[in-house]
């Protein structure tokens, strides 16, 4: 247990002190700032309803969280392998599964830091509007599920690929595939195929939950199905990560 805790501590300290970990937070802050400035500087966007602005901001936050999960997850094993540090980690008494779990906790902590960074932006764009307070727990829940899914998938991929680049390219493709139906717009998603794709797509599930809560002011009962789908995907991803990392080659 103490070895596992030391691994978790190592991951967290790398997040907070190493340049490659902390620069992601700076970039995330700059992206959120750029979007906020865009909202006030554009005449049409500045007339947007507060709830709509909060929803758009939430969409950016969960996608940033997923992107950080893919980058950090891809770096998890493949990056250590490339830097030649995986061997020393595998020499510790911790199992490779422990290593994967420690890395997953590190990524979840990154998401929590990003969530804390994004809260002032949400207040800035939505404090005079509706549903800001109810948005916070839903954003945290849906974001955590998405980060769990993408981080587990990327870590699992990273444990089997030789280089960080190849793990990252597959991870980013997965993220794009999951995110692309959402770009199609609501009218194209009204058909039965569109609705089915929305139901099985975790990114669409997260965004639909946020839309339903922030814009339509719908209660928890309407969110049960998309949240259950997200939970299902999270459990499956965790199971895959657990199975795949049982044996990791150098």
């Amino acid at each position, binding site marked *: 247990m103490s070895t596992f805790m030391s691994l978790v501590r190592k991951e967290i300290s790398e997040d*907070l*002190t190493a340049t490659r970990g*902390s*620069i992601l*937070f*700076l970039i995330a*802050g*700059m992206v*959120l*700032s*750029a979007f*906020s*400035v865009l*909202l*006030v500087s554009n005449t049409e*966007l*500045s*007339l*947007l*309803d*507060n709830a*709509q*602005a909060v929803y758009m901001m939430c969409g950016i936050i969960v996608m940033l969280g997923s992107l950080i999960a893919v980058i950090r997850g891809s770096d998890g094993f493949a990056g250590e392998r490339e830097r030649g540090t995986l061997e020393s980690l595998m020499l510790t008494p911790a199992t490779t599964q422990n290593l994967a779990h420690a890395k997953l906790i590190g990524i979840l902590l990154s998401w929590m830091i990003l969530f804390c*960074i994004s809260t*002032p*932006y949400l*207040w*800035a*764009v939505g*404090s*005079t*509007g509706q549903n800001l307070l109810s948005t916070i727990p839903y954003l945290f829940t849906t974001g955590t599920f998405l980060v769990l899914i993408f981080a587990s998938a990327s870590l699992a991929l990273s444990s089997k690929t030789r280089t960080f680049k190849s793990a990252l390219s597959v991870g980013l493709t997965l993220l794009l595939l999951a995110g692309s139906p959402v770009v199609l717009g609501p009218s194209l998603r009204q058909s039965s195929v569109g609705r089915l794709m929305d139901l099985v797509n975790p990114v669409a599930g997260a965004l639909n939950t946020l839309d339903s809560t922030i*814009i*339509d*002011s719908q209660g928890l009962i309407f969110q049960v199905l998309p949240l259950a789908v997200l939970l299902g995907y999270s459990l499956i991803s965790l199971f895959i990560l657990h199975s795949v990392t049982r044996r990791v080659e150098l």
Partner: protein
Amino acid sequence: MKWHSFHVALIFAITAGILLACESASMAAQSPSVEISLERPTGTMKMGDTPVFVGTVKNIGRQPLKGLVVYLSLVSLKSGDEHPVDLEDWSAQKAVRIDQLLPGETNTQKWGMRLIQSGKYGIALTAVDPQRKQPIVSDLMSFEISPKPTLSSSRILPVAIGEPLLILLLLGVVRISRIRTA
């Protein structure tokens, strides 16, 4: 001859009677048995307001009406970009079912709406009687929603500029403390 004329007159009278009866029955079937009106809230409307439109449905027929469905329709009347508006985002309830409306009875419904976009709009109330082919629509009421900037730069800019600077400052502090420790 007289007898023959009497028969012709009788047949003519019966035919005319049947035709008149059919005509009046058809007119009764086509004339609306519902009077429908929509009342707009007083004062000017601007983005973010939640005015309440009051819709009234009155049974002016002789028969009770069952299963009447009443709904609002909103149309953007912006010149060159006229289109129907999905009321889902405007938080207005989509339709109301009136189980039964007795002759002379009036049903009043309040339709609250959150105005989320500026522009010129038209709104109408429609009642659908399952027994009739034609829906009954109120007069189109047009109204203007004036724009209101909802996002304030005085609130956003301090966060948008301050937060990256704060993160940068924290990163600098961490880096300096690491160098000193080393």
